[in-house]
């Protein structure tokens, strides 16, 4: 059974909420990260997340929701993002975002595509494919960054491992309407 229009709208609006948060997280990190090369990568990726949020926000409107409608995800995931946003160490920031948060989102986007009729929901699927493509590039750039600046390579920490596990457990983070009110952001 595929997701219906209303359910798809909730997924899209939730994904948008998350992309806006990622944009804001990177934006807050730029002035507080000392390493120039890292600042430049974070700065470029602000624009990637913003474009994702924009495309999803427009698609939400096509799915009978207000333009740029955003839906807050499950509380536990909101807390996880807030925890990552509060990290101050550069290597940990990079590892948390590129080795945990983005792969986690990657899995959620793929899971979404598995649940829809790709023909019927073609416009969303195209957006998701572009996001996955961008995310792969972002991951590549984060890897190149760590090669260029070895000091920001993170050693595998327990914290990161625990973060990955929490993220994996929170695979479905969509705050379905009726249970959670929509929260406009950005």
């Amino acid at each position, binding site marked *: 059974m595929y997701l219906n229009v209303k359910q798809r709208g909730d997924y899209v609006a939730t994904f948008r909420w998350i992309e806006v948060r990622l*944009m*804001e997280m*990177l*934006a*807050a990190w*730029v*002035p*507080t*990260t*000392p*390493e*120039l090369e890292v*600042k*430049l*990568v974070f*700065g*470029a990726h*602000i*624009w990637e*997340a*913003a*474009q994702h949020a*924009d495309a999803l*926000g427009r698609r939400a409107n096509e799915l009978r929701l207000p333009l*740029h409608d955003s839906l807050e995800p499950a509380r536990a995931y909101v807390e996880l993002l807030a925890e990552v946003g509060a990290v101050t160490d550069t290597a940990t920031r990079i590892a948390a975002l590129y080795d945990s948060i983005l792969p986690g989102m990657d899995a959620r986007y793929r899971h979404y595509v598995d649940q829809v009729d790709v023909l019927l929901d073609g416009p969303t699927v195209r957006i998701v494919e572009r996001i996955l493509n961008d995310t792969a590039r972002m991951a590549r750039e984060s890897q190149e960054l760590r090669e260029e600046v070895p000091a920001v390579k993170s050693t595998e920490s327990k914290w990161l491992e625990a973060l990955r596990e929490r993220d994996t457990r929170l695979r479905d983070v969509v705050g379905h309407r009726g249970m959670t009110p929509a929260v406009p*952001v*950005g």
Partner: protein
Amino acid sequence: METIGTVIGRNGVVLRAGPAREACFTVVTDQAEMAKHPDGSLLSRREQLHGDVNAEIQSLEIAAQSLADFPDAPWELRLELARQCWDETRHAQVFLRRLLALDGYKGEFPIINQDWGVVCMFDNLPARLAVQNRIFEALSLDVFKEGVEAWTGWGDPETAEVIEGVMVDEIRHAAFANEWLRRLSVGNPSAMLKAVAAMSRLKSMAQALTPPWMKMEHEIPSNVEDKRHAGLAT
């Protein structure tokens, strides 16, 4: 907006505390402490590029901080700021590339984060757009136009071409701020009043922060064509 740290600049001007920098940089808070080499010399050209890298980084940081500080701004405006972040990263990279090509390096000269210190003292977005995008970015159109001629004259067409490319983006940054100041003011005159007040405050801050012996020796000609393209009064 969270509470911000401040520092005291020349003549007691209160500035926002500086953004994070690597230990290789010597960060000064007074323009008098900046290096100054004879115009056109290799050291002077590297110093310019080094300053350009830091200027672009500050523009990135200012746009990013505005995204973080004003989550309730209209989405289309936030999208412009996000795009500006990317633009500024590319500008910093190309200037850094030219610096390295001239055998310069990160941290070779002192840097000053005065643009950040001034702009991020303003607690509202119209003020930041007015000062950073409408004044500083528009002023950079004048400076860069002169820069294209200077670098060409110094026999460095690569750097001249880089500056020309950067200018294209700066036109857009000035233009979107101009357009958004107009849109924010429709039905809300206080937005324009905040912008005007900020521009007036900037004037007094700039006077206080500039050492008397470092005032402009010559007036930079206005880049009329690009400013017109950005929709700015020339």
